[in-house]
């Protein structure tokens, strides 16, 4: 299946923000996200914010990839946080109890600052 997830990257200090657009599903975006984050870990850039606002479809494989990369980043000594969860995504994260794991934010500045202030976000 074609790569249906677009990823835009920008940096704010030592924090990398990835803006996701499109589908984060089985064989449609999940592998692209894995490769991107693995590259960041390889470059020792493990302060990561994922902007989820543009994610149009998310399935259990996409959620699994978020969790898998959250664990990879944490093992690399960093942290991955989520920004702009839609109501639909928030519902899925709530059902799976992952809201208790991920720090989530609605404001990018706040998400970036949290790496130094120690804030735990809206859901954490």
């Amino acid at each position: 299946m074609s790569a249906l997830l677009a990823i835009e990257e920008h940096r704010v200090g030592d924090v990398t923000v990835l803006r996701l657009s499109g589908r984060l599903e089985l064989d449609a975006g999940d592998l692209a996200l894995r490769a991107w984050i693995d590259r960041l870990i390889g470059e020792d850039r493990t302060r990561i914010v994922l902007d989820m606002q543009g994610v149009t479809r998310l399935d259990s494989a996409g959620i699994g990839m978020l969790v898998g990369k959250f664990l990879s980043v944490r093992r690399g000594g960093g942290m991955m946080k989520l920004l702009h969860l839609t109501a639909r995504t928030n519902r899925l994260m709530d059902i799976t109890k992952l809201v208790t794991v991920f720090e989530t934010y609605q404001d990018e500045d706040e998400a970036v600052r949290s790496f130094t202030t120690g804030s735990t976000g809206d859901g954490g």
Partner: protein
Amino acid sequence: MTGRHILLVDDDRGLRHVLAALLTPAGHVVTAVGDGPEAIAALNGARFDIVLVDIGLPSMSGLEVLAHARSQPDPPLVIVMTADDTPETLLQAVKRQPYRYVRKPFAPNTVVQIIEDAVASASAAALSFEVISAKPEWLEILAPCSLEMADRLQSFVMHLEADLPAAVRESVAFAFRELLNNAIEWGGKLDPARKVRISCVRTRRMLIYRISDPGEGFDIDRLRHAATSNPVGEPMRHMDVREAQGIRPGGYGLALTRSLVDELIYNEARNEVMCIKHLD
């Protein structure tokens, strides 16, 4: 993108112009016609890779154009565009094996994206399915185990449920897709030579999806790689098991599906599942 020969059939001159203007710069060769007889003549005179056809044509139904296109020796993929979203029309189209069904009005880029998907996975896009029953209250399809086919089937099935409240529609769409992906990935091993059987039954009070896969089933007590086995307060515990077993990250499908529908019933072998959503 590799250019394709596209036949565009619509009596709306403005839409023909917009779509041709989007598709031509992408490298496609577009032939645009305004009615069914012209489309039939074009199909008889040249080979097309993709046909975009409106159902509501002035002198001949687009369904006839679809049938004619699909009866060609090397049939093109047909994308049906229509403002007529009744289940009867959808099912008439589904019986003729369209690639996709797009409800009007749509953003022109929607069609461009569908064509890009078709081109990117050409061999999978050419797979066909068997329609066993095409009644609004009972749709039953036998389809190859391919994720691209899952995309197509989900699109058809969700058009059937267009009258449901958005929240219900969203829940059943998610559950249907999770169960179908499971059947295709685990039961069918992503092998298009194997088939998954899907029934969508609609009663006045409930919606039932029954999905039967060609696998041997599974033992639910051994699903340590699924989130349903996690202890309370540890929603990621199963990920260790998946990593140790070399399974891709995931395992949340069953937990999510159970929460989004009213009943989830497996047969004894667990290679067939029935998912029920109450509508009142």
